[in-house]
């Protein structure tokens, strides 16, 4: 009997060890694995930008595993698809936290979805570093478990407004899709216009699915706006530019928040995309930006995915570098300690410097580019400018 009891005790100990109790965190994966999970839009309207982040996530996971894993544990990635839908995303994060019991959370994409998910991870006290949300209100509700790495929406049009000022624009229109991020970007553009003395003569939002901008563009022209700050994605900014050309409406400057920064924008639109200003959180230009490790990251990414990383990809990779650094500092997968580390760590990444304020927001600086002869060229801020902006935009008949 005695031997049996000893054996049972030893067995129980062994079982406990295998279950991971001995490693100091609540994980319980076999084979020394750590489960890293998140839901990100792989289909639906956000699939394109979020897809680039998925690339970076996969790249990072394989690199970390090749280096011997995260704190010595092999990463098992569980990346679900929220279909660009807020409700789906909420459900998936609930599932990831309560059923799958992931050890480390990854962020979703888009401000709207991140804002909704922030309530879920806050409840379970699991932190994540957002790489796909730039709307300030997310960080103004006293949340403790969400951090951001990217420049805020309010600054997306900052460079464009400055350039408009430089060429003497006095009246501008601010338009944008009727959702959280474009609205914030619009608010920021308005504030920058006010600061620089540009009169906002028209401000209007349109439904997400709007394809016909004939009337809106006519209205902008009728209001005598000289510049258009459009807080838009691909489909809407492409439609606006095309219809401007069709209606032969000429503005001194047109700037869009997201559309022009997507890789295939200049190629798909051809000459219509010329002279358009766009915003970028980051560009794969190691010589211009000079962040450590950029060159190597860009090479690895390009080798694997056949294209250069865009800023969505760069932001996700930078956020993962920060998370890895914070975890190393903590030395375990204790989410409470990880939260504190994310709040205090200062790290240099391929994306730039990370150091958050009391709200959890990073003061990342973005850049403004112009599509010139099919290429995106950095034109603002001056310290990073590759070339001078070619403004005011020539008339359509001369493009």
């Amino acid at each position: 009997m005695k031997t049996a009891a000893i054996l049972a005790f030893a067995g129980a100990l062994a079982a406990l060890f295998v279950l991971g109790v001995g490693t100091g965190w609540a994980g319980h994966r076999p084979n020394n694995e750590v489960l890293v999970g998140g839901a990100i839009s792989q289909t639906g309207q956000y699939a394109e930008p979020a897809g680039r982040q998925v690339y970076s996530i996969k790249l990072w996971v394989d690199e970390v595993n090749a280096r011997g894993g995260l704190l010595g544990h092999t990463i098992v990635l569980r990346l679900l698809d929220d279909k660009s839908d807020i409700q789906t995303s909420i459900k998936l994060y609930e599932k990831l936290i309560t059923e799958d019991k992931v050890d480390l959370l990854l962020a979703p994409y888009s401000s709207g979805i991140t804002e909704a998910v922030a309530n879920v991870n806050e409840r379970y006290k699991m932190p994540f570093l957002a790489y796909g949300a730039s709307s300030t209100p997310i960080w103004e509700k006293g949340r403790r478990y969400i951090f951001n790495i990217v420049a805020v929406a309010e600054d997306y049009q900052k460079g464009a407004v400055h350039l408009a000022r430089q060429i003497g624009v006095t009246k501008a229109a601010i338009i944008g899709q009727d959702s959280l991020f474009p609205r914030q970007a619009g608010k920021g553009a308005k504030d920058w216009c006010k600061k620089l003395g540009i009169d906002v003569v028209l401000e209007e939002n349109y439904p997400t699915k709007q394809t016909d901008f004939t009337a809106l563009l006519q209205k902008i022209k009728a209001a005598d706006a000289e510049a258009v700050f459009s807080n838009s994605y691909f489909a809407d900014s492409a439609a606006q530019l095309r219809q401007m050309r069709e209606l032969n409406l000429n503005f001194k400057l047109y700037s869009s928040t997201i559309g022009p920064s997507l890789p295939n924008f200049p190629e798909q639109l051809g000459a219509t995309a010329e002279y358009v200003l766009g915003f970028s959180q980051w560009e794969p230009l190691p010589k211009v930006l000079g962040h450590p490790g950029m060159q190597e990251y860009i090479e690895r990414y390009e080798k694997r995915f056949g294209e250069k990383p865009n800023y969505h990809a760069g932001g996700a990779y930078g956020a993962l570098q920060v998370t890895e650094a914070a975890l190393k500092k903590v030395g375990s997968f204790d989410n409470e300690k990880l939260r504190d580390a994310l709040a205090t760590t200062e790290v240099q990444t391929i994306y730039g410097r990370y150091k958050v304020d009391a709200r959890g927001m990073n003061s990342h600086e973005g850049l403004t580019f112009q599509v010139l002869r099919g290429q995106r060229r950095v034109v603002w801020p001056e310290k990073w400018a590759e070339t001078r902006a070619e403004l005011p935009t020539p008339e359509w008949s001369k493009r």
Partner: protein
Amino acid sequence: MERSDVRSLYLLAAFLVCAYAMPFLVGAWAGTVRLDERWLGNLATVVVGGIMQGGVYAMFALGLTLIFGVMRIINAAHGEMVMMGAYLTWVAFFYLGVDPLLSIVLTLPIAFVFGVVVQKLLLDAAVGAPELTGLLITFGLGLAMIYTAELIFTTDFRTIPYAPGTVQLTSAIAVGQNRVISFVLAVAISTAVYLFLKLSRLGKAVRATALNAEVAMVCGIDVRRIYLITTGLAAALAVAGGALVSIQFGFNPETGVLYTLQAFAIIVLGGRGHYVGALIGGLMLAVLENLVSLMVPNGTAMVELAAYGLMISVLLIRPGGLMGVKEG
């Protein structure tokens, strides 16, 4: 015509006058209506733009209403067929260097065959079954098409830089070249289909089947063959619509859903199964959207409200839609 029918027609007319006067009244109140030459030019541009847009929408709706009329199936994959057309045109343009208009000659037969296959494999099972069956089958087909397109083309947006210039109708009214091309083509194709249905023997058989499949069968019409032709034709209309989308807008595998919704709203408005109704419905929606956007302050945010408000109101007054088709 019954008395209640006549009354609902008058009510409808009164309502429509009010609906279209509304943006003008709001605009006058807000001071956006100025009645000078420049403003009238804008108004005309916007109305012309709406008509162009409406013509293309109507063509999507025609395919949807055709299938519904003949088989009582709501084809939830209609928008995906539009999307398929856009991709076929895109591939022809970027890889084979074929002009988007010319490529319709290539894509239409492909679309027709695709429609026939869909009918054989899927829709035959849904004819005569409860309406939900057809809806679910086509919904599944639509999802399968979306994910297939994502596998092949990824979710990146595409568009074709074709005929981007402008056509100056008068000094104040301009319209895009690609829009004029799209509109002319949409009208030509829609008219051809309409004439086919009205005049040709086969077209008459299609209409007879739509009226009453059993009687048509008794009269010696091969109803199964008519179904094949109907779906083939509807798919061809959708794919032609897709070609027009590809030269006007950006699209990705998910945009089809939008076109299904739009087409559905139009056929409900125009009268389910009614061909001319689809045309009128398409034009009415697009023009109203543009008027609201132009004159109402922050009106572009309200175009969907206006469009669906119009649809619901018309249905309340006249449940059969504008052309008042009776059910059953």
